[in-house]
């Protein structure tokens, strides 16, 4: 069976189980909403200050919310030792990662799209005209977060202090994504918007490098 067909079967399983429980989507959406609401009181909406700081806040909220998502990503597979049954069933373990990366990216994107109207209202920043490029930035940024997060989740799920290990490993590795995504988003939401293609390119290259690393070394992350 090819990598893509195996991934498609596993992705169907990921989406089916999540949409049945809606645990991740609810948790991440509520978390991002709380952060946006809290900081909207600290920053005066519609001001230059809001335009300057809001993109960074948005990405910080996304990053912290995603860490909640990754906490359970592989831990769920340990409940009934389903990771072992998957490893027995698939010929290429990369399919397990690929399905989880795609599912996590979709969940993150869906949460972000749900949160964008609240972001626009709370910080009084019009988004409509910039939406296509903003979605592109959210996609490449979220993909990077998902690739690294899924890999770290596989490592931390087998560790004793997994709750501490995940953020400790995740945050430093994702600093480049956070910085560049915030800068690109800030330029896009400026009164004179500029699309920073170099930044988007950097995020795409980051995604490609880490996806390749996951393809090469992912099998070792699943070993007992």
């Amino acid at each position, binding site marked *: 069976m090819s990598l893509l067909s195996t991934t498609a*079967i*596993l992705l169907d399983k990921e989406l089916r*189980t999540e949409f*049945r*429980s809606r645990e991740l989507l609810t948790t991440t959406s509520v978390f991002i909403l709380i952060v946006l609401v809290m900081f909207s009181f600290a920053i005066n909406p519609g001001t230059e200050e809001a335009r300057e700081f809001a993109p960074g806040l948005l990405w910080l909220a996304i990053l912290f919310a995603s860490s909640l998502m990754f906490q359970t990503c592989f831990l769920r597979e340990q409940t009934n030792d389903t990771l072992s049954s*998957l490893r*027995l*069933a*698939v010929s290429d373990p990369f399919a397990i990662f690929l399905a989880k990366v795609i599912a996590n990216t979709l969940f993150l994107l869906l949460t972000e799209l749900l949160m964008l109207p609240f972001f626009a209202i709370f910080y009084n920043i019009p988004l409509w005209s910039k939406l296509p490029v903003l979605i592109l930035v959210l996609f490449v940024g979220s993909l990077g977060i998902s690739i690294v997060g899924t890999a770290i989740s596989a490592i931390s799920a087998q560790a004793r202090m997994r709750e501490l290990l995940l953020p400790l490993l995740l945050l430093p590795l994702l600093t480049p994504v956070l910085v560049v995504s915030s800068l690109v988003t800030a330029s896009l939401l400026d009164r004179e918007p500029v699309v920073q293609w170099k930044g988007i390119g950097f995020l795409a290259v980051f995604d490609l490098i880490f996806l390749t690393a996951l393809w090469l070394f992912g099998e070792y992350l699943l070993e007992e």
Partner: protein
Amino acid sequence: MSLVTALRIPPTGLRFENIDKRYGGLFALRRVSFEIAPGECVVVAGRNGSGKTTLLRVAAQIVKPTAGKLSFPGAALASHGRPGYVAHTTMVYDELTAEENLLLFGKLQNVENPAARAEELLREVGLMERRDSLVRTFSRGMRQRMAIARALIHRPSVLLFDEPATGLDPPGITWLANSLREVKRAGCTVVMSLHGESEISALATRAVQLDAGSVVADTQSGASLRSILTFGSA
């Protein structure tokens, strides 16, 4: 329809050659060497922590040995996938229905007509009426039946059972013993870890005893076999 219909494939043996498995400084298995002939039904016995589960997980290829070699003489495994493995846990998804679980593992293992195969197994393990129920709503015994169905989905020629009677009531144990009898008759190689004598252990033709990760006894004689199952010396 019976489980035998599932296993019309050439039987395969199992060969452990100097298998070591170390977790840090702790040896879970130490220089384990023995061979299981195709169609044999072997009980692996031993006290808690003696290495039974690790041995079965190495045989299932879930755990890579630190040293040594595992091989499956006798048949082309590639066409029938890996051994069927029933562990302490169910190894199925609580958030999927019984049928969805079997379809998932059937599709992943390239089973021909996975829907028909899933239906056949659900009927065989007595879960046909609950095919659309989420596994998390199942009782322990039903979950164990589900685990057995999952292990058989790809028609394996080698079956590995880690304490298969766990959670089964007396009729469930009789059902399992009858199923294993059929599987054995079909020529399938069965390796199971058990505690004590039971209807299921009576099917075994050989017992291997582990202690601190090493094989300390290996017998085919009836009296010694019973002695091993009760942790006596062979």
